[in-house]
């Protein structure tokens, strides 16, 4: 799943990116409002973490422009200002959630998962598809009650399919979801990961639609 991080502080940005990457998110990081708007318009991010105190165009302006352009990308606002008015202004400008600095990385991750879950219309925190279950908190996957061990990228790929159950995902879309900017993408890595998923969870977990892409397989009980 792909996240856009908008944060001007180098140290904090670096830390959040590292933390999210550890949790199998692909993170693009921009440091000012203009770049954030461009990125959000060009790429379908699963969520955006937006700092309000940005140089140039500030976070609230970015948020308002994004919503005016009709983009529904879930946005979690980060800010050092903690007064009631600031929170209200943030939420009213179109933020979906709000975190005050300093915060727990765990809390940031939990809120991010909740945001993405809500955006996909999923209610339960544990995602179930037939006999496949995925717990985003413990990042445990099982099929038919038996735990399956997945690598980070394999997990991220399965999560992408499960959060887009009806979608046909092209190879490009999947690559974008798995990799942040500047990360080396091998020529056939997506195929390799799909191969691994099929080996660990059964061949029917992902369906190949020749010439169009991939889709989550039918639920099996």
């Amino acid at each position, binding site marked *: 799943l792909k996240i856009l991080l908008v944060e*001007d*502080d*180098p*140290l*904090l940005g*670096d*830390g*959040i990116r*590292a*933390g999210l990457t*550890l949790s199998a998110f692909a993170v693009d990081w921009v*440091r*000012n409002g203009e770049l954030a708007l461009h990125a959000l318009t060009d790429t379908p991010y699963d969520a955006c973490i937006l700092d309000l*105190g*940005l*140089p140039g165009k500030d976070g609230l302006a970015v948020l308002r422009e994004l919503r005016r352009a009709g983009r529904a990308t879930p946005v979690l606002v*980060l800010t*050092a*200002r903690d007064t009631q008015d600031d929170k209200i202004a943030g939420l009213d400008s179109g933020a979906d959630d709000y975190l*005050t*600095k*300093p*915060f*727990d*990385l*765990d809390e*940031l991750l939990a809120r991010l998962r909740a945001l993405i879950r809500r955006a996909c219309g999923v209610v339960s925190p544990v995602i179930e598809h037939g006999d496949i279950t995925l717990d985003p908190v413990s990042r445990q996957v099982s099929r038919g009650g038996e735990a399956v061990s997945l690598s980070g990228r394999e997990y991220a790929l399965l999560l992408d399919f499960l959060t887009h159950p009806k979608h046909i995902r092209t190879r490009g879309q999947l690559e974008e979801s798995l990799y942040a900017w500047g990360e080396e993408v091998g020529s056939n890595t997506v195929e390799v990961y799909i191969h691994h998923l099929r080996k660990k969870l059964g061949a029917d977990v992902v369906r190949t639609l020749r010439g169009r892409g991939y889709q989550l397989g039918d639920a099996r009980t």
Partner: protein
Amino acid sequence: MSGPARADRRRSLRWRLIAAVSAAVLLIWLLTGWLSYSMARHEAEELLDGSLAQTGHLLLAIIEDDEDELVGLASRLARARRADDNVYEPPLEFQVGRGDGTVLARSLDAPELPILGVVGYSDIVRHAESWRVLNLVAEDGRHRVQVSQPMSLRDRAALEVAGQTVLPLLVIVPLLVLLIYFSIRRALLPLDRLASEVAARTPENLAPLSGREIPTEARPLVASLNRLFARVGAALENERRFTADAAHELRTPLAALKVQSEVALLSRDAPMREKALHQIESGVDRAGHLLEQLLRLARLDPVQRLEKPVPVGLNAMIHQVVGMVEGAHPGAQRRFDLALPADEVTVRGDPELLRVALRNLVDNAVRYSRPADTVRIALTTRGDDVAVTVHDSGPGVPGEVLGKLGQRFYRGRDHSVEGSGLGLAIVTRIAELHGARLGLANHPDGGFVARIEGLRAVPPGRLKR
């Protein structure tokens, strides 16, 4: 009553007014009493002297006619005793005799005096009682009459008159004092209301005191209070904004430290953990720097003027500061171009603060310029005026940002450059303390210029002392 309460009363306007007015009323009362006593006494003297004279002449006239009737007259008069309760009907005491001093008749209680005394009134003390005595002689000198009255009679009369004037006041004076007390209380009520209004003021509510009810006498005080409220309010507002900004600026590095340490704990591979630890280290440095700047500003804020300005040589200090900045940015590749007068320029000031100010300016010039850029530092004098100019050949700042530079926590240029946003605010404050000001501008030929101007030169002659 305890000591402090008594001291409080002494200082209370109300008590002082009540005491002063009551004392004045009492004094006037006593004065009135004394005056009416002495006036009444004078009147009584004249009145009683008159009756004494009348009696004397009457007796003299009677003796003239018939000396033999005198004994019978004396006994009849002795029976017609006076009325005790009327001062103005005094007992008649007399002695009647011949011109040679033989007494022919006398009243029972008359003082035993020779009747050969000087003609006219005299005051005489006889057996511990004082008497008013009148001696008269007949025209032919054959008979003498002596009439007398006890002196105490006059005192009684005077006291009675004075008492009638003063005694009603005994009831009126307490009433008057009570009335004074209540009217003073009432008159001072606006002051009480004012006091409770002032007491209601808190740091959150420093609204100016107003109202038509403020007594004229208290207006200057209220005006001063209102000015004080305004100043305190402004200072508090400043403080509040500063605290909010400081909280804001401290939270971001704290958040970064927290996230980086969580990453260090979570990551399983060594390079990632090491990187996070390095980030934590530089984050701590940054937070330390920020804190130092904050404390410096907090210390400078309440200072009104320099404690002990001393002569400070600027040429040497600039060389020293450039060395410090170069050391702090190894590999920065900036060229320093110093334009300093040949003679040492000395100004009056605080060497530590001036060094901080110069360092901040030179440091900014290095941070916000590019490799191979030049930082030009010029020291110029015009008369007593000394100016230090730091001009970098970097990209300068956008016009709309220029006005906000120097505001606390405002970080105008590139945010990726580390900084607290306090450096220029500190320089501005230090310049103010030296009676100078900080000017910031883009140079017409490119680059950014920061200039401290208005430092006071110390004439070389004064240095020798």
